[in-house]
C-alpha cells in the first residue's frame, strides 16, 4: 500500500492543474479524427522539459488516458473513430446516436471507460511492484533478450506483414546506433553533421508519428469533407449510472480483456476494443441487437480500451518494454527526464513513479467528469478543417522538435524520419516497431556489451553463446522471441491462404 503515501503529490496546485489540462486537452485531441493519441503524447513531450519529471509524467499520463476515451466522442457522434482503439465503439455508439440516444451513449461510454480505466490502473498499482521485485533477478543477458523481445513482439503483432514488421524493428535498431559509440567513442553511421549527436528520441517520435499524419491530410487534397452530425437530446445522467450498474456482464468482459491485452506488449487498444466487443456479443442473450445501437457493445469496447491503458504500463515500468505505441512514447518521455524504468525504479524514484501512477487513477475520475461535460464541445472541435489541422501539426512539430535541444539538426532529422516513415507506411511498414527499435536499441546494446565483457571473463570457450544462450531464464526468453516470430509467421500465412481462397471463390 506504499502508493497511498504519494497521493498528496497529485493534488499540489501545479501538478493538479497539469492533470486537469492534460485531461481536457487529451479529450479534445482524442476526439479529433486524424490526430492519434500517440502523436498527441509525442507532441506534448517538449512541453514537459520545463517541468519536473513528476509534473511532466502527470501531463503525459493524463493525455494518454483521456485521448483514448476522447476518441469515443467522434466515434459516437460522427461515426469517425478518434483513434484506432475506438473502432468498435463506433459500431453501436453511432447507431445509438442516430436513434436519438447520443447523450446516453456518451454517458455510458465515459462511465465504462472510467470503470475499466480505474481497474486497469489498480492492476498497474498492484502488479508493478511484484513484477519489479521478480525482475531484480535479471542480468545483462536477460535484459538484452527482453529488449529484443520487445522489438520482435511489436514487429510481429503490430504489422500486417511478418517480414516488414521485423524489418521495421531492424530499421529502428539501426537508427538507434547512429552517432558516437558510448564506450569506444567511435563514429557510427554519421552521414551528415546533424547526426553527430545521434538521433534524439523526441525529434524522432514527433517526426515518425506526426509527419505521416500531416501528409495523409495533404493527400485528401482540397476536397470538402462533409461530416454528418446528429442531434444530441438531453438524457438524465442518473439513468445512465443506473444502467451501468445493471451492465455487469459487458463491463466485466471488457475490463478483463482490456487488462490482459494491455499486459501483452505490442497489442494495443484497437485489438482490446474489437476482441471485447466480439466476446460481449458471444456471451450476450441479445446477439442480434449488436450493431443496431445496443449499449452492451459500446460498454464492452470502451471499458476494454481504457482498461488496457494501466496494464500497458506494467511491462514498461518494470522491464522497459512498452505495452503499446503510446506507452513507447511515454518511455521516451521518461528517458529524457533521466528516469530509467526497470527493476529499481521504485527504489530510486518512488515519488516520481507512485505520483505518476496515482495521477492516472485520479485522471480516470476527471476524465469521466470532464468527458461528459465537454463531449458536445469536443465534437465541434473535432470538425476542425483538415488544412488547419495539417498546418498546425506541422508548425507544432517544427517548434516541438527544435525546442528539445534548440538545434536545427533535430528539426531536419524530425522531418527526414517523418517523410521516410510516410513512404514506409505506404508499403506496409509500421511506425511502432521502428520506434521500439529506436528506444530499446541502446538498452539492448549496453546489455549486450556488458554481457560480452562478463562472458569473456567467465567462460573460455564460446563465451557469448554460453552467457547469452544458456540458463533457464535466457532459454525462456529466447523461446518467447522465437514464439512471437513463429506465431506471427504462421498467422500471416494462414490469413494469406484465407485471402487466396476467398479470391478463388470470388472468381
Amino acid at each position: 500500500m506504499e502508493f497511498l503515501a504519494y497521493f498528496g503529490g497529485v493534488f499540489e496546485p501545479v501538478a493538479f492543474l497539469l492533470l486537469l489540462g492534460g485531461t481536457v486537452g487529451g479529450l479534445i485531441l482524442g476526439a479529433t479524427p486524424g490526430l492519434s493519441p500517440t502523436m498527441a503524447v509525442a507532441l506534448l513531450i517538449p512541453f514537459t522539459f520545463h517541468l519536473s519529471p513528476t509534473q511532466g509524467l502527470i501531463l503525459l499520463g493524463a493525455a494518454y488516458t483521456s485521448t483514448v476515451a476522447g476518441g469515443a466522442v467522434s466515434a459516437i457522434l460522427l461515426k469517425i473513430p478518434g483513434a484506432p482503439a475506438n473502432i468498435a465503439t463506433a459500431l453501436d455508439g453511432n447507431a445509438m446516436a442516430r436513434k436519438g440516444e447520443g447523450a446516453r451513449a456518451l454517458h455510458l461510454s465515459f462511465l465504462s471507460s472510467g470503470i475499466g480505466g480505474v481497474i486497469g490502473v489498480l492492476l498497474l498499482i498492484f502488479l508493478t511492484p511484484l513484477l519489479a521485485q521478480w525482475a531484480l533477478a535479471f542480468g545483462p543477458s536477460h535484459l538484452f533478450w527482453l529488449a529484443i523481445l520487445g522489438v520482435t513482439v511489436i514487429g510481429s503483432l503490430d504489422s500486417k506483414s511478418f517480414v516488414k514488421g521485423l524489418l521495421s524493428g531492424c530499421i529502428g535498431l539501426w537508427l538507434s546506433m547512429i552517432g558516437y559509440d558510448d564506450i569506444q567513442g567511435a563514429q557510427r553511421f554519421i552521414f551528415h553533421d546533424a547526426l553527430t549527436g545521434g538521433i534524439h528520441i523526441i525529434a524522432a517520435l514527433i517526426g515518425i508519428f506526426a509527419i505521416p499524419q500531416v501528409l495523409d491530410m495533404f493527400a485528401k487534397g482540397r476536397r470538402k469533407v462533409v461530416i454528418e452530425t446528429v442531434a444530441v437530446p438531453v438524457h438524465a445522467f442518473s439513468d445512465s449510472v443506473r444502467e451501468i450498474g445493471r451492465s455487469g456482464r459487458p463491463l466485466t468482459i471488457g475490463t478483463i480483456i482490456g487488462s490482459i491485452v494491455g499486459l501483452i506488449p505490442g497489442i494495443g487498444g484497437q485489438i482490446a476494443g474489437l476482441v471485447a466487443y466480439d466476446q460481449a456479443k458471444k456471451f450476450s442473450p441479445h446477439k442480434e441487437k449488436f450493431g443496431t445501437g445496443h449499449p452492451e457493445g459500446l460498454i464492452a469496447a470502451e471499458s476494454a480500451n481504457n482498461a488496457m491503458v494501466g496494464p500497458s504500463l506494467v511491462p514498461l515500468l518494470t522491464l522497459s518494454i512498452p505495452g503499446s505505441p503510446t506507452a513507447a512514447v511515454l518511455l521516451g518521455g521518461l528517458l529524457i527526464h533521466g528516469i530509467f524504468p526497470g527493476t529499481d525504479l521504485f527504489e530510486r524514484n518512488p515519488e516520481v513513479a507512485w505520483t505518476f501512477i496515482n495521477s492516472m487513477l485520479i485522471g480516470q475520475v476527471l476524465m469521466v467528469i470532464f468527458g461528459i461535460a465537454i463531449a458536445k464541445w469536443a465534437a465541434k472541435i473535432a470538425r476542425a478543417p483538415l488544412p488547419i489541422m495539417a498546418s498546425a501539426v506541422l508548425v507544432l512539430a517544427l517548434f516541438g522538435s527544435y525546442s528539445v535541444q534548440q538545434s536545427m539538426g533535430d528539426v531536419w532529422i524530425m522531418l527526414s524520419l517523418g517523410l521516410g516513415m510516410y513512404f514506409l507506411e505506404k508499403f506496409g511498414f509500421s511506425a511502432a516497431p521502428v520506434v521500439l527499435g529506436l528506444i530499446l536499441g541502446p538498452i539492448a546494446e549496453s546489455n549486450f556489451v556488458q554481457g560480452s565483457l562478463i562472458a569473456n571473463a567467465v567462460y573460455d570457450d564460446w563465451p557469448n553463446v554460453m552467457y547469452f544462450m544458456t540458463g533457464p531464464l535466457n532459454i525462456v526468453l529466447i523461446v518467447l522471441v522465437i514464439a512471437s516470430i513463429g506465431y506471427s509467421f504462421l498467422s500471416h500465412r494462414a490469413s494469406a491462404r484465407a485471402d487466396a481462397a476467398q479470391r478463388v471463390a470470388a472468381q
Partner: protein
Amino acid sequence: MTASRTQHLIASSIILVVALIVGWLSFTQQPAEAFLFPRLISVFFMVLAAWNFIRAFLALSKVGEGLSAETALAIAPGLLVTLVYVFWAAKTVGFYASSTAAFFILYTLYDPEPLSNGRAWLKRVIVTTIFMAIIYALFTLLLKVQTPRGHFL
C-alpha cells in the same frame, strides 16, 4: 488496393541497398568492438531486406497500398512548401516569419473554399494570426525557447 509490383520492387530495392550499406559499414569500420552490436543487427537487417526484396520480385508482396499518382499530386504542393519551410526558410528567413507564411500557404493550398471568396481569405488571416500568437505564447513566453531569427523574426 495494393501497390503495383514495380512500386514494391522499387521500395524493397531501396531498403535492401540501405541494409547492405549498413552491413558493409558494420563489418569494415574500426574499432571492431564498437561495431559488435551493429554487426549482429545488420545480419538480420540484410537477411530480412533480401527476403522482402525476393517477395517483391516474385510479386508476393501484397501489404501496403503504395503511392498512387492522385495521392502524389495531392501531397506534392504541401510537401514542397514543407521542404522549403523546414530545410531553408525556418533558419534563413526566421522561425516565426517562415512558420506564419507556411501555415498560411498550406491552409490556402488545401482549403476547399474557392480562392475568389473574400471571406475565406479573411478567415485564413485570422486563424493564422491566432494560431501563431498561441505558438509565440507557448514557446517564447512560457518555455523561453530561443528560435533562429534569420532575416526577420
